[in-house]
């Protein structure tokens, strides 16, 4: 740290110490769970639909066939999951900006959030973080058993204390900046499709 930086740091901290009000206590934060048994999958599906994400409830036996049917013009399919090869893997990208060549990206999320319809992704699943943003269309596998009730539960996930990058992704990109009407896409993915699929066996990791 330069001498100017040390001066600035000390000046700010001194000023904060001199001005901060008398200490107030930190409240206890409840988890706000509903007491009734909730259909987490149904709530998740409704929540993500409000954000323009789509959940495919039918079991998809043949992933390749599903992708070819849904995205017939896709040339580059990047797979970040073990159970599907795709046409490329994230590791084959030399630069993170090369992810813009991806038509469809397939990923697995380790957690869904019923309250908001969010999917957790981190640098562990993505390997190249930009694949989730520069690819045109996203397909995300989610184990229905890995859906938690609310955001309080979600932030208990160890990723938020361990991973360099993590994101709660809720639908494709959108913007309401013109006329207050939300349109999709904005800068990132154009569509987001969730496929329900049990997590790989213990010991096998995605990627």
């Amino acid at each position, binding site marked *: 740290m330069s001498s100017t930086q040390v001066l600035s740091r000390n000046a700010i901290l001194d000023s*904060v110490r001199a001005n901060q009000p008398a200490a107030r206590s930190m409240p206890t934060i409840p988890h706000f769970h509903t007491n009734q048994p909730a259909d987490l999958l149904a709530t998740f599906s409704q929540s993500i639909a409000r954000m323009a994400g789509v959940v495919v409830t039918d079991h998809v036996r043949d992933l390749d066939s599903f992708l070819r049917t849904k995205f017939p013009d896709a040339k580059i399919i990047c797979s970040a999951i073990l159970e599907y090869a795709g046409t490329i893997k994230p590791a084959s990208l030399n630069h993170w900006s090369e992810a813009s060549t991806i038509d469809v990206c397939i990923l697995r999320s380790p957690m869904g959030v019923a309250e908001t319809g969010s999917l957790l992704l981190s640098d562990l699943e993505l390997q190249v973080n930009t694949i989730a*943003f520069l690819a045109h269309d996203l397909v995300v596998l989610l184990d229905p058993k890995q859906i938690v009730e609310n955001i309080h539960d979600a*932030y208990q996930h160890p990723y938020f204390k361990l991973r360099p990058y993590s994101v709660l992704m809720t639908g494709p990109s959108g913007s309401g900046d013109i006329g207050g009407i939300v*349109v999709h896409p904005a800068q990132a993915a154009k569509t987001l499709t969730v496929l329900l699929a049990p997590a790989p066996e213990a010991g096998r990791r995605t990627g």
Partner: protein
Amino acid sequence: MSAPVDQAKNAEMFLSDTAHEARLDKLLWAMRLRRDAAARQVPEWEELRTLASEIKEHTLSNLSQYLLQFEAKASANGVIVHWARDAHEHNQIVYDLLAEQGTDILVKSKSMLTEECELRPFLERRGIRVTETDLGERIQQLDDQPPAHIVGPAIHKTNHDVAVLFSQKYGSDANNEDTAYLAGVMRENTRPDFLHAPAGMTGANFVVAETGAIVVATNEGNADLSANTPQLHICSVGIEKIIPTTESLAVFIRLLARSATGDAITQYTSMFRGPRKGAAMHVILVDNGRSERLGMQRFWHSLKCIRCAACMNTCPVYRRSGGLSYGATYMGPIGIIMMPTFEIRKYSELPFASTLNGSCTNVCPVKIDIHEQIYGWREVMEENDQIQVVKKEAMRVADKVLSHPTLYQLATATLSTALEVLPHFAIYNRLNAWGKHREVPQATTETFHQWYRTHRPKTNEVER
């Protein structure tokens, strides 16, 4: 020393365009209604507001400790932490980082702090091209205007305005006013900068002391692209944005988007704890008057703000005068109580751009007593002799009349006759701010006191 911003005069210009004014009012009120509906869906909404307020007050009252904790954690994660006392120091740090890397293009996501520091002109004067990647912010950049709203910087513009602007700047079809088409034009024109810019910049909605993480919420994905695609990620953050733990973050995430747009969450709620392999991440902790405000007994609560803009959407003055009328980085009710801490004379008129109806306080997710603070700032302006002569004289007269019942009764009794006989110029002049854009309402022929004297029950009627 700058002359006071005349919000009322600026608002006149906006009001003269009735189509824009009516549209903005309708749009913002719809956002307020969506916020109400979203809040009703959460049974613990009021408890969350109380928690958010208490967490912020706890953090701000222990701010030095949390700043040090964040610095230690972030540094351990491989983040380089900088400290900036003011806007100039902040801008210089950013420039030095870019210059060191030989960068001439910067992609950045929306950050009110960088607006506050006037970073963009600072960098542009030094030969660095800055591309704002938030759609609304980019529209404002192309139109050479500051943001008019914290969440939707170009919310005051119509589709037609944007179509014409994009056609001039990007060569798109000026007659195509479809929102999806216009968002597509932005996407096409911004994507190359994302792919080629060596550096990206974001602000932060929250900073987590416990983990050294910064948290950014967007709908467009532009912050994730700005931070993840280039080799260099710079994050500017005000020191008041710190919260203690990831557990406490949940409270704010549940409140933020619901208060802003009525959505349960933003499309992307991203957490950056450290750089990827081979890349660099810098966080600049900026004071710029915040630590001083922390010592203002009446006003430090404004530092709890999470920038949701709910107070703007509900404010009748903001909705009808537009954000640019405030001539300030932060506008609307929250701007009124923040801006005078930057420059008291320049923003001395802002506390009067309010009806003090308290709606802003009622919707604030962190329970800032906004309208009480607005009133408090009026008192400060009076104490510091910052009130215009006309306003001061009017208040002096009102004080005299209202504190003397006989004078008050005489004034109200003669009002009706006076309005009938006085010539137009005597009623509508610079002393009557109310009558600037409105017809003075017709006074009743009888005051309440006169009516009461006629209709009050006789003493013996009451006894009976």
